[in-house]
């Protein structure tokens, strides 16, 4: 997601931290680098300038020379300013007192509105709501069809002009305004409590199309109007957002395609300029790669601190706490077997894609984060373990050459792959044992880190992991 930006900050900050005292020249140097990093991340140039100025002022005011660790101080200031830009608290959906709650999606062509509509519908369903999708993109060929397919995957029904012909006020087949109006009435009739309206992509300078979306907003009176923005967008994000905001009065932004290596500076820029929060972010092609946007966590993430909170939240939702707790104890005591591993892997898989999870973890080396982990590759790991006998899983030491070839044949991999897995397992086991011991002793020592922000616990170093 914001990985590239985090990487740069990690570099800048590790240099800053290593200095005992900071001259203003050093601070300037760091700020210049931060500026370039932000610009490379497509943060709007005006936002960058204001950001760097604010950080500079605070650095000067903070009397860095007398601080014990001036580098740390600068890091803290940057982190706070970044959190401030991204917005303090996540947007909380307030449902309309008289349902349905109407959500309108608008944006440029190709920003991902249709997919987002389906993902949002799925999200509302998870919140226990009963949404209806309205296909009001009657412009792009086959857009309605696309939403129907996605809607059926999300388990949410979709209505468009052709479904509303029975109504007393049937819309013309090419009239998105009439379709929205009729669909809303239909939603009331069906007792749906959330309505999501997908509109056609349009350029902000296309007066006719902008007028059309304004009229759609008029007839549907949305409780929430979201602008859907592609994370790869450059400097233009701000201009686009301002133009849509002028016509629609946006309530927030949904950021899409965050799973690439785009640094997503558009997110920072739009929040700063519009003062509207980033409500949701979409991080993959699966319908469940979508969640509410947590600004504070995102700031941590940009700053290379990982997004541990999101991960834990996800874990607590999906994993069986008792089983996991037992496994963790065994892990720290070095009694963790391949059997436990298999069990835990299945638990972890419930949480979504592996690559998505890795990107949330702090301290994971870039090579691992960038590595493409296909869920089918994970299945392969599973297959290898399943091809072992119970004895072998409990005591991998007994696996000799002949057992190895049997396992390889059973799971359809090379013997070297089996070796690799075993070796990796041993190594991680060793690392975790040391880690557990270190943590136990650390707990006896100092308690409670400096208040407020939840920082990642110090995690083992994975840099040797790929060898």
């Amino acid at each position: 997601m914001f990985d590239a930006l985090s990487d740069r900050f990690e570099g800048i900050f590790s240099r800053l931290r290593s200095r005992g005292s900071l001259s203003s020249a050093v601070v300037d140097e760091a700020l210049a680098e931060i500026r370039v990093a932000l610009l490379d991340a497509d943060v709007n140039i005006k936002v960058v300038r204001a950001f760097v100025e604010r950080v500079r002022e605070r650095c000067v005011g903070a009397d860095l020379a007398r601080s014990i660790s001036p580098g740390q101080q600068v890091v803290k200031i940057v982190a706070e300013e970044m959190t401030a830009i991204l917005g303090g608290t996540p947007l909380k959906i307030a449902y309309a007192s008289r349902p349905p709650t109407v959500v309108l999606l608008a944006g440029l062509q190709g920003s991902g509105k249709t997919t987002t509509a389906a993902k949002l519908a799925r999200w509302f369903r998870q919140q226990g709501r009963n949404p209806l999708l309205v296909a009001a993109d009657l412009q792009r060929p086959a857009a309605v069809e696309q939403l129907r397919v996605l809607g059926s995957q999300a388990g949410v029904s979709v209505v468009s002009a052709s479904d509303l012909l029975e109504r007393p006020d049937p819309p013309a087949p090419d009239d998105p305004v009439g379709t929205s109006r009729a669909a809303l009435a239909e939603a009331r009739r069906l007792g749906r409590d959330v309505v999501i309206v997908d509109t056609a992509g349009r350029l902000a300078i296309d007066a006719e199309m902008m007028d059309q979306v304004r009229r759609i907003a008029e007839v549907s009176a949305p409780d929430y109007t979201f602008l859907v923005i592609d994370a790869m967008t450059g400097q233009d994000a701000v201009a686009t957002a301002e133009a849509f905001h002028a016509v629609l009065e946006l309530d927030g932004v949904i950021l899409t395609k965050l799973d690439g290596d785009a640094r997503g500076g558009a997110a920072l820029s739009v929040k700063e300029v519009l003062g509207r929060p980033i409500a949701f972010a979409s991080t993959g092609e699966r319908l469940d790669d979508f969640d509410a946007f947590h600004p504070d966590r995102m700031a941590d993430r940009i700053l290379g601190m990982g997004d541990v909170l999101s991960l834990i939240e996800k874990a607590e939702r999906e994993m069986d706490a008792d089983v996991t707790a037992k496994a963790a104890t065994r892990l720290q005591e070095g009694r963790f077997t391949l059997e436990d591993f298999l069990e835990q892997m299945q638990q972890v898989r419930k949480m979504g894609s592996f690559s998505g999870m890795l990107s949330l973890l702090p301290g994971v080396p870039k090579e691992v984060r960038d590595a493409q982990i296909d869920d089918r590759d994970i299945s392969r790991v599973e297959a290898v373990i399943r091809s072992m006998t119970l004895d072998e899983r409990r005591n991998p030491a007994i696996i000799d050459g002949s057992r190895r070839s049997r396992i390889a044949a059973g799971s359809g991999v090379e013997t070297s792959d089996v070796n690799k897995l075993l070796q990796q397992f041993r190594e991680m086991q060793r690392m975790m044992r040391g880690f557990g011991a270190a943590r136990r002793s650390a707990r006896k020592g100092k308690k409670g880190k400096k208040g407020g922000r939840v920082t990642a616990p110090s995690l083992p170093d994975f840099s040797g992991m790929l060898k």
Partner: protein
Amino acid sequence: MAFVILIVVLFVAAVAAGAFVGVRVRSRRARGDLEGTPPGEKAPPTRPPPPAPEPAPEPAGEALGEGPLPVGEAPSLRSRLGKARNLLSGYVGGVLARGTIDASTWDDLEEALLGVDVGVATTDVLLAELRGLVKAERIKDPARLTDVLKERLVDEMRFDDRSLHFEPGVPNVWLFVGVNGVGKTTTIGKIARRQVADERRTVVMAAGDTFRAAAADQLELWAQRVDAEIVRGAEGGDPSAVVFDAVQRAAARGRDLVLADTAGRLHTRINLMEELKKIRRVADRPPAKVSETLLVIDATTGQNGLAQARQFADAAGVTGVVLTKLDGTARGGIVVAIQRDLGLPVKLVGIGEGPEDLIPFDPEEFVEALFS
């Protein structure tokens, strides 16, 4: 509890991530959901199973008009950009109004370039050169300075050949690649129209986007409108097989050109880039020949465009770029770096939703438009 979970997750992730590297190298998943999967081709890794057909719709507004399309004059870039432009003129106007060249001149120029997505690296290089020139040639006049800057920009993008290559005799395949939502399908429709109407070539479209829901339907509408044939496969099927079938059809019926659509894919998805390599390999075998692989890039794209271009060029042997959606407020400055650093010529520019609105790239016009 939280910490405990974290340890376990980390452990599992670490072992799995570490182990899969070796495993993945030799993982080959046969799919071949489509008949006619070319013999001897292993199906490459495709998207992982529960694929929520995704992403990002291709651009809208392909003018729903029915019936035969009029073949008109291509509009000029400038005529389309007039209405959108005013943001930048501010900076350059400020430079010109100042009368002398001073520190704020350079700040304004820097801001102007960064503001159109030219990028920090390219901007730094350009301005450093410019400073040298100003000193060496004692340039005092800001108007002269902006002229020199424009010349330099045009120089950075100089290519002798921006034509779309076609070799008579065999079916030519033009492959269209890019990330999600940049406008690949629409671009194919527009190109097909020109090829059929102006070049009098017979066109077969290959609906190689088997991933996005209803993508093939969208292409089929274009095929009907521009009088081209289309070959479709099953949704979720192997795109290489679709392209293979299209090539076979073109060869059997003596068609000139196969325009192959592909699913939008983020360039960071290694398995999908592998899939793209395979599509290209399959298309490039006799009887056909891939004579163009066009990377479609959205003009709103920021610095990520360079990474996109690099990865797609590596995987698919990109021969040129199509810059779409230049009729909005975005300027597409990233193509300066793409052409300068990667040596990939921009061949076409999309400046509107109508079938005529795809025109040849002209660096001078483009640079003028950057600053207009």
